[in-house]
């Protein structure tokens, strides 16, 4: 995986309708200054209600929580299709993510039951078993890469179990996932086609021989009285694949990168591992690592500026979660916070479908880890390198255990 396909970044754009004082050279994919401290970097935009990045074809970035919330809640004006920034090409359409209401609503409701808090809870024992195995493996070592040895295998194994796939495919899944999320250009197109082919074959197999897994359940689900067709199930599974693996990896890694450097928070969690779900909520708030693109469908006055149909807008969730308007002491990590309000999972009709599963996975990961491995630090001399883009993520996190 690499940025090889994007050796030439697009030329900066300065559209006539954008006030000059709002132009910024903001590249959330490759700018080393942003990638060094992305959350802090975004805060520098807060003195403007909205800025316009000249990178990647140009895009607006609203900075106020209430504006970002409104954009999420008005999918007629801020459409989710086509997705990505730059726009995703060559892939099967992601359903329901890349549909807008009313079509979105039908498909969303068809699959949301599978991810309701109640249904997700039923997966808890299986997730605990997979997480305990990984914690046991880690606890026997002096040092690990948290990403390769824990944060990647955990959601990958959970996902594969829910698709009824053997674990020997795990490495291939991890490589596809990394390429789809982080590469730009040819590598990404290739992976899009490979994953599409793999999923079409898998869905055909499950259609012939249903099992107790997500794909079989979706094939038996009806929308408007008609079962979901195999192509739609491929699209939905593709979205699960893209949205469900690296996000949990990223959330886990941001959490551990913080905990490994904060003895006080680590000790609190180790003293009371069952409090992990509260810690997870606060860590999701403080490290809201997704930046979600929307397309402006009509000329609109929004966030104090005139946006044009066809403009793109980037909703940086950290700007909601760290906003002074959303939480008292917004710049403090407090595991005892009664109700951290955040948009780590986005807002509006496209709110992350897997959010309850992600919360469960992260909570179990932190609980079981701190029961067994209460003491750890970032390895001496480790340099933290980050992926940018839609899903920001730490590439590797070498930890010294014990």
């Amino acid at each position, binding site marked *: 995986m690499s940025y090889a396909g994007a050796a030439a970044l697009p030329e900066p754009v300065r559209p006539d309708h954008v006030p000059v004082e709002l132009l910024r050279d903001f590249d959330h994919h490759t700018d080393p200054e942003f990638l060094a401290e992305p959350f802090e970097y975004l805060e520098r935009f807060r003195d403007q209600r909205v800025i316009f990045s000249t990178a990647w074809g140009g895009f607006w970035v609203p900075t106020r929580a209430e504006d970002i*919330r409104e954009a999420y809640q008005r999918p007629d004006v801020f459409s989710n299709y086509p997705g990505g920034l730059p726009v995703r090409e060559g892939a099967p359409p992601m359903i329901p993510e890349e549909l807008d209401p009313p079509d979105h609503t039908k498909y969303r409701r068809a699959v949301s*039951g599978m991810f*309701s*808090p*109640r249904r997700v809870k039923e997966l808890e024992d299986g997730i605990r078993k997979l997480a305990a195995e990984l914690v046991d493996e880690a606890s026997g070592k002096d040092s690990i890469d948290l990403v390769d040895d824990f944060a990647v295998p955990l959601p990958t194994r959970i996902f594969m179990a829910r698709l009824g796939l053997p674990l020997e495919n795990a490495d291939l899944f991890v490589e596809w996932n990394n390429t789809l999320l982080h590469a730009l250009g040819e590598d990404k197109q290739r992976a899009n086609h490979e994953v599409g082919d793999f999923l079409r074959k898998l869905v055909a197999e499950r259609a012939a021989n249903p099992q107790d897994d997500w794909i079989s359940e979706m094939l038996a689900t009806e929308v408007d009285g008609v079962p979901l067709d195999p192509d739609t199930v491929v699209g939905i599974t593709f979205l699960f694949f893209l949205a469900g693996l690296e996000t949990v990896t990223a959330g886990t890694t941001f959490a551990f990168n913080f905990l490994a450097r904060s003895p006080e928070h680590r000790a609190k969690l180790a003293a009371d591992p069952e409090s992990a779900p509260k810690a997870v909520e606060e860590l999701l708030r403080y490290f809201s690592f997704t930046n979600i693109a929307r397309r402006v469908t009509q000329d609109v006055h929004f966030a104090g500026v005139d946006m044009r149909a066809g403009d793109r807008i980037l909703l940086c969730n950290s700007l909601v979660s760290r906003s002074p308007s959303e939480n008292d002491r917004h710049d403090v990590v407090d595991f005892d916070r009664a109700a951290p*309000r955040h948009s780590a999972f986005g807002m509006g009709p496209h709110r992350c479908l897997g959010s*309850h599963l992600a919360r469960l996975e992260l909570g179990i990961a932190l609980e079981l880890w701190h029961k067994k491995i209460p003491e750890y630090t970032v390895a001496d001399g480790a340099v933290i390198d980050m992926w940018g883009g839609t899903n920001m993520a730490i590439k590797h996190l070498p930890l010294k255990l014990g």
Partner: protein
Amino acid sequence: MKIEIDRPRCEGHARCNAIVPELFVLDEDGYIDTDGFDVPPALEDDAEVAAASCPERVITVVR
């Protein structure tokens, strides 16, 4: 104390339900299954926290 919920705008974050499951009841899909209710005095503090936790800001406390 009363809770009012702008139910069509619920997006299923279920933060309210995580805090006071007995009041903020969810439907089969995980979305809120009530337009509002009277809050028993013993649960007023928790209900207030639950209302504040809504990322969509569709839960209102009425006194």
